[in-house]
């Protein structure tokens, strides 16, 4: 009998700041509940010890400015490392599934990292995906993000990767941070419809939450046929969460976990440290282990029925209907989406709420008929108080064709040869996922 593994890393000695939602206390009551239940004596559950992720594991995913060490603390590396440890245990067939109940979270961390966004510095799930694909030769992975906030970091990292399906179920971005995650963000031209955003109206209950899963995500997964499913298990859709406005309960999370059957779940947000986390975490753990979670009922929920209005019902039907229709049709081809120039270009600005940084970005992806194509980004960031940074990075996809990989090194040589100190980017990056080689040059 293979077991459900738990890594519980509450980081009792780490906080963003003493009164920040992401502080030492966050998983204290979850610890109390899980330990008190005696569930860790259950022979179906096994506890693992966390470990640190390597710098290379982070470089495989991010362009950290100026380097990984400046953007991470040990807590970040342990949080990511815990996910990797469970990934290894899963792929070595030691366990049936696993839950990294860890902090700090990661799903708002994008490819370029100038600082902390939405309490995140590095993206735990993305680091896990790239590690497993590199180490075990897995190709197709699905990430299902059930945090109330749009998983914009994970979306950004895999936006042009046709082998990673990123699905985010969240409260409508017009009403909540980070203000993105609309249906038209559906993947780059080479990975169209491999990003699925399901913005739900504030006030959505278990019923609406599960409807979105059953009508859209489930069939999308069935069509994509991933080798592995990872759940970004944020818990702030809970009806008591102080930072959001949804009405989902522990039972809803338990049911979703039971049906989704993720291979690995990684904790994301959730800041109702007393009223939600002890119960939701327990329900998810029990559901993963195939145990009965029907008695995990929040005291606040007793005697009340969480109902969603007619209006909310209709909004959910509209959005699920949109996706059913969209995913039911044959999408346009890659060459058609890239257009005549064979180049995808995007300019945008990104705000780092925690660290108060404004970033300006220009990205490009080259069309290649044989592979996802080379990705380039130029990024400048300025802190509200403090200095600015300018970087340039290029990424060779894991499944790049040999021609693209070779051309990337030609570009790199040319750019490094021409770099002009003091009058260009501060830092240059070459991320060769295919060759597992990560180069960084100061400007």
């Amino acid at each position, binding site marked *: 009998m293979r077991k459900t593994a738990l890594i519980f*890393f509450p980081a009792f000695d780490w906080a963003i700041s003493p*009164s920040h939602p992401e502080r030492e206390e966050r998983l204290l009551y979850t610890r109390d509940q899980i330990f008190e239940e005696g569930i860790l004596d259950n022979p179906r559950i096994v506890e693992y010890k966390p470990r640190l992720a390597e710098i290379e594991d982070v470089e495989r995913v991010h362009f950290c400015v100026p380097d990984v060490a400046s953007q991470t603390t040990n807590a970040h590396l342990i949080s990511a490392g815990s996910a990797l440890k469970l990934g290894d245990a899963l792929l070595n067939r030691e366990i049936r599934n696993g839950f990294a109940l860890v902090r700090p979270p990661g799903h708002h961390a994008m490819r370029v990292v100038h600082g902390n966004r939405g309490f995140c510095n590095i993206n735990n799930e993305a680091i896990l995906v790239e590690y497993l694909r590199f180490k075990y030769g897995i190709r197709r992975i699905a990430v299902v993000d059930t945090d109330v906030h749009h998983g914009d970091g994970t979306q950004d990292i895999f936006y042009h990767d046709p082998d990673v399906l990123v699905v985010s179920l969240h409260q409508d971005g017009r009403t909540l941070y980070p203000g993105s995650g609309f249906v038209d963000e559906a993947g780059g031209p080479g990975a169209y419809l491999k990003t699925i955003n399901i913005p739900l109206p504030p006030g959505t209950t278990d019923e609406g939450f599960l409807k979105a899963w059953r009508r859209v995500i489930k069939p999308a997964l069935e069509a994509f046929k991933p080798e592995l499913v990872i759940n970004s298990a944020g818990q702030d859709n809970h009806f008591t969460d102080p930072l959001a406005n949804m009405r989902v309960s522990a039972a809803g999370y338990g049911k979703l976990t039971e049906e989704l059957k993720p291979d690995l779940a990684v904790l994301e947000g959730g800041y109702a440290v007393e009223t939600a986390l002890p119960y939701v975490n327990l329900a998810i753990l029990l559901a993963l282990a195939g145990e009965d979670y029907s008695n995990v009922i929040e005291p606040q929920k007793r005697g009340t029925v969480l109902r969603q209005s007619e209006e909310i019902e209709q909004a959910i039907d509209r959005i699920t209907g949109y996706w059913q229709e969209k995913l039911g049709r044959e999408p346009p081809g890659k060459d058609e989406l890239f257009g005549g120039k064979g180049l995808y270009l995007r300019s945008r600005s990104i705000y780092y709420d925690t660290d108060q940084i404004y970033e300006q970005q220009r990205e490009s992806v080259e069309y290649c008929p044989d592979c996802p194509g080379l990705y380039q980004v130029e990024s400048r960031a300025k802190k509200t108080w403090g200095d600015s940074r300018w970087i340039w990075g290029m990424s060779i996809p894991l499944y790049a064709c040999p021609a693209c990989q070779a051309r990337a090194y030609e570009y790199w040589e040319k750019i490094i040869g021409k770099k002009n100190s003091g009058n260009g980017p501060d830092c240059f990056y070459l991320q060769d996922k295919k060759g597992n080689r990560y180069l960084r040059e100061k400007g």
Partner: protein
Amino acid sequence: MEIGIDVGGTFTDGVVMNGGQVVNWVKKETGEDIASSIQGVLEQLLAGIDPFSVKRVVLSTTLITNIIAQGRVAPAGLILLPGPGVNPRDLPFAAKAEIIKGAVDYRGRIIEKIDPAEVSAALKRFLDSGISRIAVACKFSQRNPALEEEISRLIEEECPAVRVLASSRVSGLLNWVRRANGAVFSLQVSDDYRLFAGEVAVSMERLGLKCPVCILKADGGTIPLEQSLQRPLEGIFSGPAASTLGALAAGGEGLTSVVMDTGGTTTDLALVLEGRPLFSEKGAFVNGYPVCTRAMAVASLALGGDSTITLENGRVVLGERYGKAMCLGGARLTVTDALVYLGLSDLAGREKILPILEEMSRRHGLEAGELAEKAVSIFLESLERKLEEMFAVWEEEPAYRIWQVISGQKKRPRTVVCLGGPAKGLGILWGKKKGWQVIVPRHAQVANAIGAALSKTTLRLDFFADTQQMIYSTNIGGLHGSLEHILPNLEEAKQFAESLFRQAAKELDMPVSRSETLYEEGFNIIRGWNTLGKIYQIGMQTPPGLRAFLEKGAGTGA
């Protein structure tokens, strides 16, 4: 002088120690009645010794394990107040349970009241089925024992003949299943245990011993016999504690080693790291049920000196014990016999083994030496696997703090202390194979009794306080309550914990001079933008170790 007695399944060992010196020792077969076995050993030990010079007697017994394993327990029932969480029907409770309303949350707040009619109905059902001992377990009762106490009171009022025990009186650690089972077993064994304690007291008096009697605990500390009546489970599994302490006594202060204790049917492996025995992360299991007793981490292998050697389709196989080794007059060839044949044992009787061993080997086309070596190497391979498992568990102990994760790789010991008859030969071979140092203590045959005699009084306090709820609790059953003063900072919380530590030591009649801090943490309780209070977690204990170590030359290196 101090006396240590270890009552094992087969033998009862006793020693009289004067500091680190063995003054006298006895080893006898354990009889039917444990109390009279103890008396017999005491009588022999005291030959030529003035009873007044004995300052302390420490007992380690399998009494409670036997009572439970043989099912000689009084029937008990369990009233459960699960509140929200895991389905209680899926949890391993050690008694017939009645589930009723009433719940406390992790902060100690009552989130659901009890219904006295339900209590009454549950009580009636228990009485109807002949159960008059009832344990009460409410989730988070250590944070707030009010519901457990209310139910106990209701039952006592309605039916004074019923014995009730609240789980928060047994332990204050998180894990209500373990607390509940601890309460059940305590109720079940208490009469037999009381009887035993009475008999020991009579023996002491008869032999003119006026000194205190202590019971060795599973964690290697001691508790006065009188105090152990309230906490009978503390003394369960003290055998492995005794042998680990015995190994430490021989290995010296600061020992880092594997301890291998080989008996007739099993071999136990334990770890001592820098003079401190390794504890099991979660607690012990009794009859397969998890309980709250803190115990040393021991890996048991179902092979011992009396394991029989057989051949199946030409393959050497080690099997169950059928009796003594052949060299001692037994009927079947055993591991001990193989050691004797190979010259790895001090036992005589090689001539009794030879004909059978040679005949058996010839039938399977082997040399006698090959067969013996094969049997021993199978034993060592099984030991090696068990040791690897134990190391893996130790190295994979969960960590909840950054410093625990980055504090580096755990360093495996490269020494083995061998206890028990066959351990010496096996240990020397094993050590040679692994390139390890092997220690065979001079008094290895009574190492457990030495460990008991040299054990120290120990106390551990895990303190928890919530200054918003104004409550505190500890790991010690019954030691919890309301805070009278707000504890504004960690320093004051520590002082309060220290005062509780002293109080507990006094109540348990334990002379405690020093304490060391295991961990200390303060959490801010913040809701919205306001700090509403603090939660403290502090752990302290008496420094582990021994009263004395065996004098130099007591161990032999190889």
